[in-house]
C-alpha cells in the first residue's frame, strides 16, 4: 500500500510538469506573450519614454525578456518545494524576502569604460537597528535598480538614435522595430566626432552613475540580508545549496498582491458554496435514483426522470438570470439579495440570529451568509440532479439482476435489505468515482455562477486573471487544480479499494 502510494505520488511530478509546461507555453504563444497584461497596465501612462522605462523595469523584474523555457524553469524553481541556492528570509508576518538580485554590468563596457566601483565599507547595522533598517535598505536597492534599468533603456534609445544618424550602414544593425540590441553593437567603433555622440556619451555616463548607485545599494542590502534580520525560511538539506520550503506562488501582476493571498481569500468563498451545494445534490439525487430504480417504470421513476432532465436542460446562465430577475428583483418577489456574499452591514452583525429587547429580529452573520448564497447554490445544484440520479438508477438496475441478489432473495432476505444491503452497496462503486471526479471542480469554482451573482470566489479570480493576462494567477490556479485533480484521482482509487475488496494495492 505504502509503496503504491509513493509510486503514484512520484508519477504525479512529471504529470504536473507537463500540465504547467503546456499552460505556460499557451500563455507565451498567445498574442502579446506573457507580458501582455503588463503592456496594458503600462499603457495608462502618457509619457512614452516613461512607459518604455516602466516596461524595462517590469521585464527585468519578471524576467520577461528571457527565453520562454528559462522563464518556465524559473517559475518551476519558485513553486518547487525543493529550493536551490540561498534560502529566503521570512518576516514575522510570514512574508518571504528573497536576497537582492545581482546587478549586471552596463552595456558596451569596451567603448564606454566603466568607472571604478567604490568598495563597500560600512558594515551592516546590528541588532534591532538591523531589523529597522533592513526594509529601507531593501527598498533602496530596489529603487536604485529600477533607476539603473531605466537608464540602460534610455541608453539603448540614444544608441538607436546615434545609429540612425550614422547612415544606413550602421542603422541596418537596428532590429525590425528600429530599436537597438546592445549585443549587435559590440564591435562598432564610436567616433567621438560623429553626429549625436555627445548625447550617447551622456546617456552612457548616466547609466554608469546609476550603475554605481545600484551596485552599492545592492551590496549593502545583501550584507544586511546576510546578517539575517529575520529567521531563514525553510529546512536546509545541504547548507547553502539545497533546502525545502513552501511553494512561492508569486505576486499577481495586475493586483500587486501575492497570489497565495488572493487564492486564500477566494477559496473559502468557493468552498462555502460548494460544500453546501454538493451534499444537497447527493442527498436529493441518490435517494431519488434508488427509489426510481426500485419502482422502475412507476410514476415516481417517470416523474423524477422527467423533472430532473428538464432541469438539466435549462442553461445555468438562463437560470441564474431568471433567479435574479424573479426571485431577487425587488419589483418581483425580492426574496433574496441580488449579488455578493454579505450584507454591507455584515461586519457589525452577531454570528447567530437573535431577537432584541424591542422584539425585532436580527438575522446575524450566519443567516445573512446563507441567505446570500442561496441562489448561487440553487443554480449550482439543479443541473446535477439528473446526472447523479440517473447514474444511481442505472447502477442499481444493473445490480438488481445480479446473481448474488437472487442468492440473497433465496436466503430469505427481506426486500428492503436486498435493496439497501446488497444492491445499493454494490451500486456505490461508480458513485465513488463520480464524487471524486466532481471534487476538483469545486476548487475551480463555477465561473458562470460566480460571475452572475458577483461572488468573489475562485471562478471570478481566474476569469479576471485571464482578462488581464495575469500569468502568475493563471499558473498558480492551473498548478493548484492540477494537483487537486491528481490527488482526487488517487483518493478515488484508494476509496475504491476500500469499497471493493476485489481491488487491492498489496498484490501488484
Amino acid at each position, binding site marked *: 500500500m505504502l509503496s503504491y502510494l509513493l509510486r503514484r505520488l512520484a508519477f504525479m511530478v512529471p504529470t504536473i510538469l507537463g500540465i504547467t509546461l503546456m499552460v505556460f507555453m499557451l500563455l507565451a504563444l498567445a498574442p502579446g506573450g506573457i507580458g501582455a497584461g503588463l503592456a496594458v497596465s503600462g499603457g495608462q501612462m502618457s509619457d512614452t519614454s516613461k512607459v518604455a522605462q516602466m516596461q524595462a523595469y517590469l521585464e527585468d523584474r519578471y524576467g520577461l525578456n528571457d527565453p520562454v523555457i528559462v522563464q518556465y524553469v524559473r517559475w518551476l524553481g519558485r513553486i518547487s518545494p525543493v529550493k536551490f541556492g540561498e534560502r529566503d528570509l521570512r518576516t514575522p508576518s510570514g512574508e518571504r524576502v528573497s536576497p537582492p538580485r545581482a546587478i549586471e554590468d552596463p552595456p558596451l563596457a569596451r567603448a564606454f569604460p566603466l568607472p571604478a566601483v567604490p568598495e563597500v565599507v560600512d558594515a551592516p547595522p546590528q541588532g534591532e537597528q538591523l531589523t529597522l533598517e533592513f526594509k529601507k535598505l531593501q527598498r533602496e536597492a530596489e529603487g536604485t535598480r529600477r533607476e539603473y534599468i531605466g537608464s540602460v533603456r534610455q541608453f539603448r534609445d540614444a544608441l538607436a538614435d546615434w545609429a540612425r544618424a550614422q547612415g544606413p550602414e550602421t542603422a541596418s544593425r537596428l532590429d525590425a522595430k528600429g530599436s537597438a540590441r546592445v549585443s549587435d553593437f559590440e564591435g562598432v567603433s564610436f567616433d567621438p566626432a560623429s553626429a549625436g555622440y555627445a548625447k550617447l556619451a551622456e546617456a552612457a555616463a548616466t547609466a554608469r552613475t546609476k550603475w554605481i548607485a545600484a551596485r552599492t545599494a545592492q551590496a549593502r542590502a545583501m550584507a544586511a540580508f546576510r546578517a539575517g534580520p529575520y529567521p531563514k525560511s525553510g529546512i536546509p538539506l545541504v547548507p547553502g545549496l539545497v533546502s525545502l520550503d513552501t511553494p512561492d506562488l508569486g505576486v499577481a501582476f495586475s493586483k500587486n498582491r501575492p497570489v497565495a493571498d488572493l487564492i486564500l481569500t477566494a477559496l473559502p468563498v468557493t468552498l462555502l458554496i460548494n460544500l453546501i451545494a454538493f451534499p444537497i445534490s447527493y442527498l436529493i439525487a441518490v435517494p431519488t435514483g434508488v427509489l426510481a430504480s426500485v419502482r422502475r417504470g412507476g410514476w415516481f421513476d417517470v416523474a423524477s426522470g422527467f423533472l430532473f432532465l428538464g432541469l438539466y436542460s435549462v442553461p445555468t446562465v438562463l437560470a441564474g438570470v431568471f433567479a435574479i430577475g424573479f426571485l431577487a428583483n425587488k419589483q418581483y418577489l425580492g426574496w433574496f439579495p441580488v449579488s455578493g456574499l454579505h450584507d454591507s452591514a455584515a461586519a457589525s452583525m452577531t454570528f447567530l440570529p437573535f431577537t432584541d429587547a424591542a422584539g425585532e429580529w436580527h438575522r446575524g452573520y450566519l443567516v445573512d451568509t446563507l441567505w446570500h448564497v442561496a441562489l448561487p447554490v440553487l443554480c449550482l445544484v439543479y443541473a446535477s440532479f439528473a446526472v447523479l440520479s440517473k447514474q444511481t438508477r442505472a447502477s442499481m438496475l444493473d445490480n438488481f439482476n*445480479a*446473481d*448474488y441478489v*437472487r*442468492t*440473497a*432473495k*433465496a*436466503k*430469505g*432476505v*427481506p*426486500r428492503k435489505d436486498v435493496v439497501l*444491503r*446488497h444492491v445499493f*452497496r*454494490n451500486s456505490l462503486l461508480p458513485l465513488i468515482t463520480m464524487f471524486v471526479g466532481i471534487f476538483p471542480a469545486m476548487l475551480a469554482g463555477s465561473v458562470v455562477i460566480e460571475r452572475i451573482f458577483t461572488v468573489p470566489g475562485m471562478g471570478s479570480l481566474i476569469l479576471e486573471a485571464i482578462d488581464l493576462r495575469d500569468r502568475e494567477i493563471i499558473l498558480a490556479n492551473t498548478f493548484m487544480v492540477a494537483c487537486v485533480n491528481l490527488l482526487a484521482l488517487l483518493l478515488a482509487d484508494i476509496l475504491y479499494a476500500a*469499497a*471493493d*475488496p*476485489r481491488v487491492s494495492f498489496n498484490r501488484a
Partner: protein
Amino acid sequence: MSDLTVPVLEVADLAVSFDNSNGGPRIQAVNGVHMTLFPQQTLAVVGESGCGKSVTAMSTMQLIPRPPGRFDRGSILFEGRDICTLSEDEMLSVRGGKIAMIFQEPMTSLNPVYTIGDQLMEAIFLHQKVGPDEARRIALQAMKDVGIKKPEERLAMYPHQFSGGMRQRVMIAMALACRPKVLLADEPTTALDVTIQAQILELLRELQRDRDMGIMLITHNLGVVAENADVVCVMYAGRVVEYANVFELFDEPLHPYTRGLFRSIPMLRDQKHRLVTIRDVTNDAAEFRKIPGVVPWWPDMPAGTKPDLASGRDEHVLVEVRPNRWVGCWRTPELQSRTHRRPSLDFRRGDR
C-alpha cells in the same frame, strides 16, 4: 428421525405463465406440472433449456417476479400449506430457512463486497434466533460440513479469493446452515469441472442422508442423473412427459422423447458419422404406438398419429401406464373417464 414416507413437497398441476414483452399471447412456461419429493430423496428434474425446470424451482421459492409472472393454477404443498397462498412475510421464513436453493453460477452468486462470513451469518441471523457468537459457531460448522479447510480463516475472506468449486461449497454451506427440509439445486455443477462436480454431488448426498433432506436436482446432464437421482422427472415444454425411478427409467424409457434423449448420447465405440437426434425419434410414428391403450403426449406429432381428444379439459394427462411408471399422454376420451394417481414415488436408490 422424521417419517420418511410423508412427502416434504408436493407440486400439483402447477401452471405459471409470463407476459409476452412483444405483445403476443402469454408464454406458458409451466403447464400442469406434478411432482412429489420425499425426505432423503433426490428428485432429478431433467429437460432441455426452457422446459420449465427452473420456473418450477423458482415458483417453489416464490421468486418469480409478478408481474410479468403469474400463477394460473395448481398448488405447491409444503408442510401442509400451499406456498402459492403464503404472504411475502410468511414466505421470508420459508425461503432460505425451510427451503433453500443453490444456483448454477457459483462465480457470481456470492456478493463480491461482503466476506463469506458476513453472507453465511446473514442467512443464519435471518432464520435462527442466535447471538453473534453462536451464529459464528454455526457458520464455522457449516463450513466444516461442506469440507472447507481452515474455516476460521476462510470466513474472513471475500468470494473472489475462492475457486469456483470452493464458492459452490460456500453456497451449499449457506443454503444448509439453517437445516432446510428441501434443497432446490438448480444445475449446481454445470459451471464446474468434472472432478469438482463429483465432489459436490457426493457432498450433497452425504448431507442429505444426515439431515433427511429432500433435494430437487435440476440438471440436463444425464450422467449426473444416473449417478445421483432416486426419481427422475422428465419435462418438455412445460409438461411432465415421464416420471419414474431412475433405474426403471434408464432400463426402459417409455416416452419417445426420453428414448430420444438417451439415444442422442454419443457412444465412444459407435462408428457413426451422425448422431441420433431427439427429432429422429419423435418423428417416427411407430415410437408413439409402443404403449398399449395410450398415445404419449408430444406437441409436434408425426402425421396421422395424433388421437382424438376429450373436449373441455387440458390436452395433457399424466398416466400411470405401469405400476409406478408415469407417462405424459394425450387426454383421449377413454383416459378422461379414468382417475389418475398423481406421481409419487417413495423410492431411494438404496431401496433396490
